[in-house]
């Protein structure tokens, strides 16, 4: 087992870190206040290679793998998690199109995403539930050479900043009755709905996608009719979970840095509080969680790059890292004493951001369902 990262990964990390510190830091205040995604960052991010990171070169992407993606998202998140939240869903759309699209669809829809001309969006969750995918109520009916879509998706990242959404809707009964579609925002009957006001990941655009007798061309069916569940599951379990895990990982890194910095500088009883064993233990715990989560995240991404099946590992990485980020943010706040609850200090945002990652892209409980199944299957008796 080789745990060493190469020069390429180190340069990706360095480049992203410099970009994030220089270009994203000044945007944080506005994001926290307005909840709006800084769309003017799309072009510089495209130039760097963030928007087209996992897109193949033939669709104007950089063609890097998931380990590279995890490192890049982690570095962006270390500065402000809302930005890579938007980007990781953007990548999900690219992955989805790349895995299931026809050549024509890929040629049309991936390059604008690679170039950062628009953001990508994958719309699965409905008011009836996100965890309960089969309970979805959005419908799609084939009428002549058009599909007519009806339904409402909610808690969708990039709902308002995307020019086209990938929507899962019912074309038939049961698990083989879901299909995936590419819906252009200006298709008749399509529009973004309300915007959500979240207490964390505030700069990430979250909202509703509404289809009211929305007409899309037949050719916008993505994959096979009835194959929609597979599209949703693969996209969410692969690019979705590893992306969310990377976002949470960056938050965890920030928790560690803020905690260690504060503990080393704050003087009480004539010494920095880091000299107090209790405080140093808290920092050690945060550091340990950070190390664990980094290994989980990198391992899951590495497996994808090796074309191995990794949905259990991605579920572990996602559910564990998001939970750990929230716990460590809480500890980091406590290390800050009264300053920890002051809005002037960064550390309160880390807790708010981490909490939002816990249920985004798959709840912790669903994660455990996946892992439980994998853990028990080898022991289940047949028959």
């Amino acid at each position, binding site marked *: 087992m080789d745990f060493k990262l190469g*020069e*390429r990964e180190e*340069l990706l990390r*360095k*480049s992203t870190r*410099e970009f994030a510190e*220089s270009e994203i830091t000044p945007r944080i205040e506005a994001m926290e206040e307005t909840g709006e995604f800084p769309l003017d960052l799309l072009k510089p991010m495209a130039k*760097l*290679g963030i928007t087209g990171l996992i897109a193949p070169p033939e669709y104007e992407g*950089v063609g890097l793998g998931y380990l590279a993606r995890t490192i890049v998202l982690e570095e962006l998140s270390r500065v402000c998690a809302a930005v890579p939240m938007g980007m990781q869903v953007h990548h999900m759309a690219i992955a989805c199109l790349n895995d299931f699209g026809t050549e024509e669809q890929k040629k049309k829809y991936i390059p604008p995403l690679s170039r950062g001309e628009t953001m990508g969006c994958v719309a699965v969750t409905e008011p009836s539930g996100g965890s309960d995918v089969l309970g979805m109520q959005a419908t799609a009916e084939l009428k002549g050479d058009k599909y007519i879509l009806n339904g409402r998706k909610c808690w969708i990242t990039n709902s308002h900043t995307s020019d086209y959404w990938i929507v899962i809707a019912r074309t038939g009964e049961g698990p083989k009755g879901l299909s995936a579609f590419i819906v252009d925002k200006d298709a008749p009957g399509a529009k973004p709905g309300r915007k959500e006001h979240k207490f964390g990941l505030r700069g990430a655009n979250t909202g509703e996608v509404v289809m009211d007798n929305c007409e899309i061309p037949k050719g916008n069916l993505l994959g096979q009719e009835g194959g929609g569940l597979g599209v949703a599951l693969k996209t969410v379990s692969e690019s979705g979970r590893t992306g969310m895990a990377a976002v949470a990982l960056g938050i965890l890194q920030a928790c560690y840095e803020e905690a260690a910095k504060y503990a080393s500088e704050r003087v009480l009883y004539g010494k920095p509080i880091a000299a107090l064993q209790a405080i140093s233990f808290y920092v050690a715990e945060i550091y340990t969680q950070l190390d664990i989560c980094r290994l989980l995240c990198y391992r899951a991404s590495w497996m994808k790059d090796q074309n191995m099946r990794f949905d259990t590992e991605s579920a572990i990485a996602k559910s564990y890292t998001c939970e750990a980020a929230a716990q460590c943010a809480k500890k980091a706040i406590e290390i800050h004493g009264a300053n920890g609850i002051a809005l002037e200090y960064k550390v309160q945002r880390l807790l708010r951001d981490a909490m939002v990652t816990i249920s985004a892209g798959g709840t912790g409980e669903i994660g455990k369902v996946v892992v439980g199944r994998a853990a028990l299957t080898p022991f289940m008796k047949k028959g």
Partner: protein
Amino acid sequence: MERVIVCVKPVPDPKVWDRLRMDPVTKTLIREGIPSVVNPLDKHALEAALEIKDTYGAEVVLLSMAPPDARPVLREALSMGADRAVLLSDKAFAGSDTLATALILAEAIRRIGPFDLICCGNYTLDGSTAQVPSQVAEFLGIPNIMHVAYMGLEQDKRLVITQKIEQGYVKIAAAPPLLLSFTKEANKPRFISFLEILAAEKREISTWTNADLNLDESLLGLGGSPTKMADMLLREKGRQGLRLEGSPEEIAHQLANKIGQLGFI
């Protein structure tokens, strides 16, 4: 313009400078565990060279005199967009002062071939003498301009340089071949794009020793340097270190007294 050579130096990362320590015995810097970065001003020099590459399609060659562990720093500079790198590494070069260093760099430049421009950072963070650029230019017999705050490309390869001076600037018209030393006002170095990182993996870093330069060894290194380090002493602090105690009012009062005593009020 066809070729621009950029001198690049790895220096200790300024973010960890407070960790730098002198070895009291060898009187040199302890470099273990201290990461190296591209000298920040060299990035401005490289950015200027890359602008020329973008405009004229010139080849950008990096040149560095450093130990072999400088390769990752050169790879990073290549990832900004330079075409290839030449690393001058030889025990004979170690301990060179600015004159010997300039001699080595100038000879390497001659062997790289014809060039239009040489771009350097105005000074390095670790040595800070700012002497090497002028000396390299002298050995090559070309003009040099320091403190470049702006490089304007005109028609026919002409340049109009804004040179920063105390409380002002000088505008200078110049033409290649020329050596320019850049300040940080000159430009904003581009971020390293991921595509360039991938492309740079295939770019060449050639290592040259004195065998490639064929310089007289008596002119190199510690022995060949006209300036010699004679001694290194810990500065006598000689500070009184008197603590002023009391309430803020009392402290302010005592401090005001002292300032009066010194004659400033």
